[in-house]
């Protein structure tokens, strides 16, 4: 093990870290934004609306992310119509292709997670909302979604970590994320242990940080489910 290689080339890893964080956070944010309406329509839409959403989720959950990324990055170039249009300046960039594929992928998984969470809304809550005279829109916004988000949080935290790990695939299409940085170092110095173990440490640190954040969020969102005694202990003056 020669750690001086890593220390000297730390800037490459930091560039990689930046790219990983940007890729993961943007695709997660856009994916979630897409998934919320899709999950609502998947539950409450007409069968005609549900069908394409089901097909979308089925395709993206049933095929490897690597293949999805290749379909976008290599595959879209097959269509002359697309190549001549303005969109091509978007799909020409490896970075944006990865972002596009990751966003659709996480949107599909998140739709499925939210669909289950929405479906599991207790009947009582819906009946109470109807009895209070809420419109359908108000009911979704105030009752169904907040309670569904709570139920979805544990599964969604898994999805965040899967997306973080999946983002390492971006290195395959020339993007310098953390894995990409490791591949550069390995190719330059032929030092696979140092290169990839450093990448592994970076990923582990991010993973544990995410787990920590989700735990914090869980405490906040599930505050009403905490046992009374522990609440009293928190409120008690020191």
């Amino acid at each position, binding site marked *: 093990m020669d750690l001086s290689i890593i220390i000297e080339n730390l800037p490459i890893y930091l560039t990689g870290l930046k790219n990983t964080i940007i890729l993961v956070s943007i695709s997660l944010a856009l994916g979630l934004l897409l998934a919320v309406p899709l999950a609502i329509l998947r539950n409450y839409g007409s069968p005609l609306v549900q069908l394409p959403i089901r097909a979308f989720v*089925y*395709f993206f959950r*049933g*095929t*490897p*992310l*690597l*293949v*999805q990324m*290749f*379909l976008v990055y*290599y*595959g*879209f*170039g*097959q*269509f002359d119509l697309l190549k001549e249009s303005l969109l091509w300046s978007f799909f020409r960039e490896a970075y944006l292709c990865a972002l596009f594929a990751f966003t659709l992928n996480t949107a599909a998984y998140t739709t499925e997670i939210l669909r289950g969470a929405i479906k599991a809304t207790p009947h009582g809550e819906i009946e109470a909302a109807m009895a209070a005279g809420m419109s359908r829109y108000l009911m979704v916004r105030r009752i169904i979604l907040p309670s569904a988000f709570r139920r979805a949080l544990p599964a969604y935290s898994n999805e965040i*970590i899967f997306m*973080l*790990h*999946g*983002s*390492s*695939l971006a*290195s*395959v299409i020339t993007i310098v994320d953390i*894995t990409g940085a*490791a*591949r550069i170092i*390995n190719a330059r110095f*032929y030092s*696979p*242990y140092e*290169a*990839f*173990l450093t*990448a*592994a440490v970076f*990923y*582990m640190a991010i*993973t*544990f940080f995410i787990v920590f954040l989700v735990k914090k969020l869980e405490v906040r969102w599930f505050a009403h489910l905490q046992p009374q005694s522990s609440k009293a202990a928190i409120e008690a003056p020191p």
Partner: protein
Amino acid sequence: MFSLHGYGPSIFEGTILTLEVSLASLFIAMLLGISGALAKLSRARSLRLVSQIYTTIIRGIPDLVLMLLIFFGGQVFINQLGPMLGYDDYIDINPFIAGVSTIGFIFGAYMTETFRGAILAVSKGQLEAGTAYGMSSFMVFRRITLPQMVRHALPGFGNNWLVLVKTTALVSIIGLDDMVRKAGLAAGATRKPFTFYLVVAINYLLITTLSIYILKQLERRYSVGVREF
């Protein structure tokens, strides 16, 4: 668009290889999973610690990084080890072995969690009854725990299998001729990447759909004798 330009058989060979890699990895993952689960539930602290470290590390590192580490790192390791044992030729790591062992190692950790939960779901009274009959702990495991944990393990096992099949796409990166790489080669020659990757995507969908069907049948079979509510 859907002419395969004579690359159909080549993609088919790749599909067979994908299935081989999947099944071989599954075998390793199940062995590691059972051992990991027993270690996690064992009375020995050191065993519990080792299995805990194993599952924690695997969940923290991306599959691709582990695979590259084992493929490139293993290459260096074996070639450092070789001369020490008096073997001087350069040794190439077979990508099949690197791929299968990495995927097996990764999914062994997920299987550990699945099997651990399934073993815990078998009611304790039955195990005690087995011991009371004078069965050895191995016999209790084989006759009482194992047949009953299958039912509880199947849903998690099925999920792991579906994810595992998709993870095998990574072996194309370390140069194994699975269907993704075959599609890449065909795409390069014909300039029809979308067509070939779409064919591969459909192949994956077929494999997962068939798997889900078989798993449903198995679940039904192993739930015989369980009251349905």
